[in-house]
């Protein structure tokens, strides 16, 4: 038997929707096999999963808490991956955004001013923090051709150490140093009230709050969509991603573009960090088992890839995967398999990647025949299907 893959001449539209959907179904089926093999009941596990994600009381409220950062991380990854700049440092850029955002909230909020001012300061500071951290791999890539995958990833570890250091190993501005609790366990300083981001509460499922950050995420998606679809910047970035040589001939300033795209990606991640502090934790979370353990930045890559780097799909996928992630957190403990959510996410991504080929190619399984030696077989392949 032999599997051969042939190029499709025309890409059917229905496959564009069928493939992601099929990937999700396939992933749940494979994960069910894993569950059965390890002695769990897939039906009850999945029912628990969906109840905790979307159905039970206040589950959507909880899901939004996870989906908001995931949307930011997914958008950050999508902005860069689209140009084939593999920024996997959204995680660290988010920490930096949280650090600078928290500083702005504490400082501006502490001085007391009109309500929107501290929040605006946090948004700007968070974006700048993430941007600055993303500039390191961006500049190294643009001017020294250093592999951005490795540098951005290694910087995540450094950012995590910095975050822990600020709360646990120093008497920094971010750390709560007064009061009884502070002497027992190191925590971050609480934001003043004026710097806490408001939410919009809907009276469904017993109260569902849509955090301000979720609106910012949708706004960021719209900005990205416009940028990539309607502006010269986006067009040049797309050309550069598809064919660096064509971009060079067309006079695109490649170094500048690389730095700009990394900065864009980092500032979205940084905004996610600020939202993390302003919307949810209300203090800088330096605990190595807190924010750092969740790994929103890495899940964001899954979100971006599944959304095929389309900003609006990314937001939608972030909500769905956010549900999955939230269920994983809620159900953590005995009786629910740990790591299951990561396994499902991984398989979804694998099957989406494999399924991608269905939209561009036709897969044929044929019986092995004598291969005919074609003299002209030494042709170079075209660019790979993403």
């Amino acid at each position, binding site marked *: 038997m032999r*599997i*051969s*893959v*042939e190029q499709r001449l025309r890409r059917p539209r229905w496959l564009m929707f069928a493939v992601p959907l099929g990937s999700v179904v396939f992933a749940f089926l494979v994960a069910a096999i*894993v569950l059965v093999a*390890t002695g769990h009941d897939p039906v009850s596990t999945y029912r628990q999963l969906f109840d905790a994600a979307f159905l039970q009381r206040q589950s959507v409220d909880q899901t939004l808490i996870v989906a908001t950062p995931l949307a930011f991380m997914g958008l950050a990854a999508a902005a860069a*991956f689209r140009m084939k700049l*593999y920024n*996997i440092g959204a995680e660290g850029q988010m920490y930096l955004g949280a650090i600078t955002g928290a500083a702005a909230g504490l400082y501006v909020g502490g001085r007391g001013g009109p309500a929107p001012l501290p929040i605006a300061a946090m948004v700007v500071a968070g974006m700048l923090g993430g941007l600055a951290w993303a500039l390191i791999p961006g500049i*190294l890539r643009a001017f*020294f*051709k*250093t*592999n951005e*995958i*490795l*540098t951005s*990833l*290694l*910087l995540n*570890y*450094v950012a995590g*150490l*910095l975050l822990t*250091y600020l709360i646990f*190993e*120093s008497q920094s501005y971010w750390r709560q140093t007064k009061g009884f609790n502070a002497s027992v366990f190191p925590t971050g300083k609480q934001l003043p009230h004026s710097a806490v981001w408001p939410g919009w509460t809907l009276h469904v499922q017993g109260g569902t709050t849509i955090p301000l950050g979720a609106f910012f995420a949708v706004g960021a998606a719209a900005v990205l969509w416009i940028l990539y679809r309607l502006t010269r910047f986006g067009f040049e970035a797309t050309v550069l991603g598809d064919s660096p040589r064509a971009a060079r001939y067309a006079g695109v300033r490649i170094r500048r573009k690389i730095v700009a795209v990394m900065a864009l990606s980092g500032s979205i991640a940084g905004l996610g960090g600020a939202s993390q502090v302003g919307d949810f934790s209300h203090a800088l979370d330096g605990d190595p088992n807190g924010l750092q353990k969740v*790994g929103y930045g*890495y*899940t964001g*890559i*899954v979100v971006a*890839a599944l959304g095929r780097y389309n900003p609006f799909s990314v937001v939608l996928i972030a909500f769905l995967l956010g549900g999955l992630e939230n269920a994983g957190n809620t159900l953590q403990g005995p009786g629910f*398999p*740990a*790591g*299951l*959510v*990561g*396994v499902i*996410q*991984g*398989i979804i*991504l*694998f099957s989406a*990647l*494999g399924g*991608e*080929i269905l939209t561009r190619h036709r897969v044929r399984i044929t019986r092995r025949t004598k291969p005919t030696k*074609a003299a*002209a*077989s*030494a*042709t*170079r*392949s*075209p660019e*790979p*299907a*993403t």
Partner: protein
Amino acid sequence: MNNSLLVVLIASGVAYGTPLLFAALGELLAERSGVLNLGVEGMMLVGAVMGFWTVERVHANTELTLVLALLVGAFAGTVMAAIHAFLVITLRANQIVSGLALTIFAGAAGLSSYLGNDLNLADRPAVHAFHAFLPTSMQSWPVVGPILFGQNVLVYVSWVCVIGVGLYLTRTRPGLNVRAVGESPAAADTMGINVTRYRYAHTLAGGAFAGVAGASITLAITPQWVDGITGGAGWIAIALVIFAFWRPELCLVGAYFFGALQALAPQLQARNISLGPTVLWSNSLPYVMTIVVLVVVSTGTARRRLGAPAALGVPYVREEH
């Protein structure tokens, strides 16, 4: 003398560098055949958890159990690599995204922690572990004692692997074929080399090495199972291959250098020496140094493109009619 900082650092650099070395050799084989596998961290973690599981569950004498654990770890790594191989070689998916997917699937919040939890491996001391085995009189020889003779058997095995991989790539027919496949698959194909088969074989071998690398962490360096125990070692191994210009002997040097950097922070703390202002600085040193070396290697005169396989990351499609 054997307690001087330099000797201790080199000795622990060799010990901590060994998992990095195994993983880097595996990645080197895969990349030499033209397949970039960013899933090293995930493959290492699955190898680590399965290796540890073996020593916890198998009741046999120490040597047999440990060999079995390494084999199980290697097999687990191979299975993980097979997913990547199928996606990128047969289905021609994007190698970068597929490798990242492998790390998410198998990594710290995925399969490895699923297995660690399901097999009940947390908070258990290892039943068997690798220890230094040469006579203590040899281990106490000045300088060379702790560095060369105070190591566990995995260190010596890794030396054999370095020589083996080096000879394989430069002196054997299949090794030369791999390089041809990595440099120019089309030319290799016209020579009658089966590109697909070579790429599969070396991606899987890379997975086996990564599995052994992971198992050598849970069986020798810190004999226990903790979620995400590799702590980024897989990524440093990928960076090592670049520093080493895709050459096995340079992988060894690089691995020991980064191993020593990892040992630096605890050693300095134990001796009450403060390097720079804070703990933050010495803890982040391995990561920062990796970035610095990457930058040096990727610029200027160092960028002779020595060894970087020309077809790395490019799927091969034979035009068929």
